[in-house]
């Protein structure tokens, strides 16, 4: 997967969780939770959805690395290389 593919996957997952999320004005280096008004329950859904789609296990200790769109992509690049 390319960086753009991964970005699109994340945005698609977020849209699936909240179809009213404003993704057009997203700042990739700012926390997703603050910009999209997500709570910890929504955040868990992003993790679970990634797991369901690509069988990647994300340990709880790594959750901070998923804070922004940019950091999500960086975290997922090596893990989704083959996907």
């Amino acid at each position, binding site marked *: 997967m390319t960086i753009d593919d991964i970005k699109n996957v994340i945005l698609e997952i977020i849209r699936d969780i909240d179809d009213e999320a404003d993704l057009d004005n997203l700042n990739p280096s700012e926390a997703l939770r603050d910009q999209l008004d997500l709570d910890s*329950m929504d955040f868990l859904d992003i993790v679970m959805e990634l797991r369901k789609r690509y069988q990647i296990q994300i340990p709880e200790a790594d959750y901070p690395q998923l804070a922004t769109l940019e950091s999500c992509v960086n975290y997922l690049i090596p893990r989704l290389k083959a996907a």
Partner: protein
Amino acid sequence: MRSYPLLIIGGGLSGLAAGIRVARFGLKVLILEKHSKAGGLNSYYYRNGRLLETGLHAITNYAPPEDRHAPLNRLLRQLKIPRRALKLQEQEISEILFPDRTSLCFSNDFDLLQKQVKKRFPHSTRQFARLVAEIDAYDPFTPRPKISARTFVSSFLQDSLLVEMLLCPIMFYGSSDEDDMDLSQFVILFRSIFQEGLFRPTGTIKGLLDLLLQQYRNFGGEIEFSSGVREILADGNTISGVRTDTDEKITCKHLVSTAGLPETRKLFTTLGSAAKFSKLTENDSSGRLSFFESICLFGKSVRQRFPQKRTIIFYNLQESFSYRRPEEAVDINSGVICFPGNFQGNPKQDFVQMRVTHLANYEIWRNIYNEENKTLYAAEKKLWAKRSREVLGKIIGNCDENIVYEDSFTPVTIERFTSRAKGAVYGSPYKVKDGRTHFENLYIAGTDQGYLGIVGALLSGVTMVNQHILNKI
């Protein structure tokens, strides 16, 4: 032998919600429901071709769609149920009525209650504002030892009548303790009932249950009805599975029980494992509060006579409000009167439905009930329904004329159909707030986990699975 990563005992609201969460992420899950229908305490039955609801009066926790962090909206996102699918109808106005003394109305706009307190209890206005500020600042989800809600509320409000009036609806809608309740639960219910408000889905509880079932099945979840669990199989600190009423052994990695604390304990057949699950015996941990409820359908001509635009009336005739197991079979000195037709936007039906709920004594009804000969039990039900209508006559006007249909249920009915010990609708006074047990892979969800009402039950299932299961399977 069948084997599942997750087994759930009970297809009520918490079990269905827990199941949806796990199935949504592609995991195999089986719900075993003892009854032939889903819903548990909030279900339905048919009489004379008419669908009648059990449990549901109104759903608490109303929130507008834009309030994303409100429990209702978080819950719907978690279950992936679009809000429009429910077609929510908000309540009209509800009332706390202590006849010959005073009344307080409330709606889904908290402002109304504040104004009513100001009008009826002018000397308590500032005290009430301080109480509300304290409730706003309180975090009811942090586990902590039980604190008396009555003591807490009385420490702000000097007028004991106002204390009783505020406690009345809150206790009726969720307290498993006699004459008091845990402060955390009080705070949750104060917010859910007064600050958020009441609503119902268009249609009946069956619509909501069907929606949940459909969602669960679409995600691949399995549910079996008329499938009771006879025994939970323990192996040291771990649950290995269950044995069903048909003697099938099903193994599992994780087990969620929504049956309740005393009811789950009963499923351990060895003394050692039962004691390990809970030191409290079934008798000690069963709740003492149960209810008698009458459902009445009237011809539409009574509509003019009955209170207009009233959704729910919580009344009390006694000097102080008694929320405890009554000495007699039914306590008609207080009750909850619900008009399920009086929600905003509800089209007028060709009949008027009224449901009345009173505290009831389980032991008395248990002694009257005889499986082989129900004559005495039926007569007693009729008698109390009549007495209830007589009292109601004084409160809302004549309820004896123009009855098209009437049915009542008792604590025994509740116990028979929901397996809730002693018909204790709000479960055990002992709650397992974090859902954990002494078995590493057994969790409690539902009423005895401690969240209340329909939204609470669903959130309980969601939260327990989020916290304990999703990160482990």
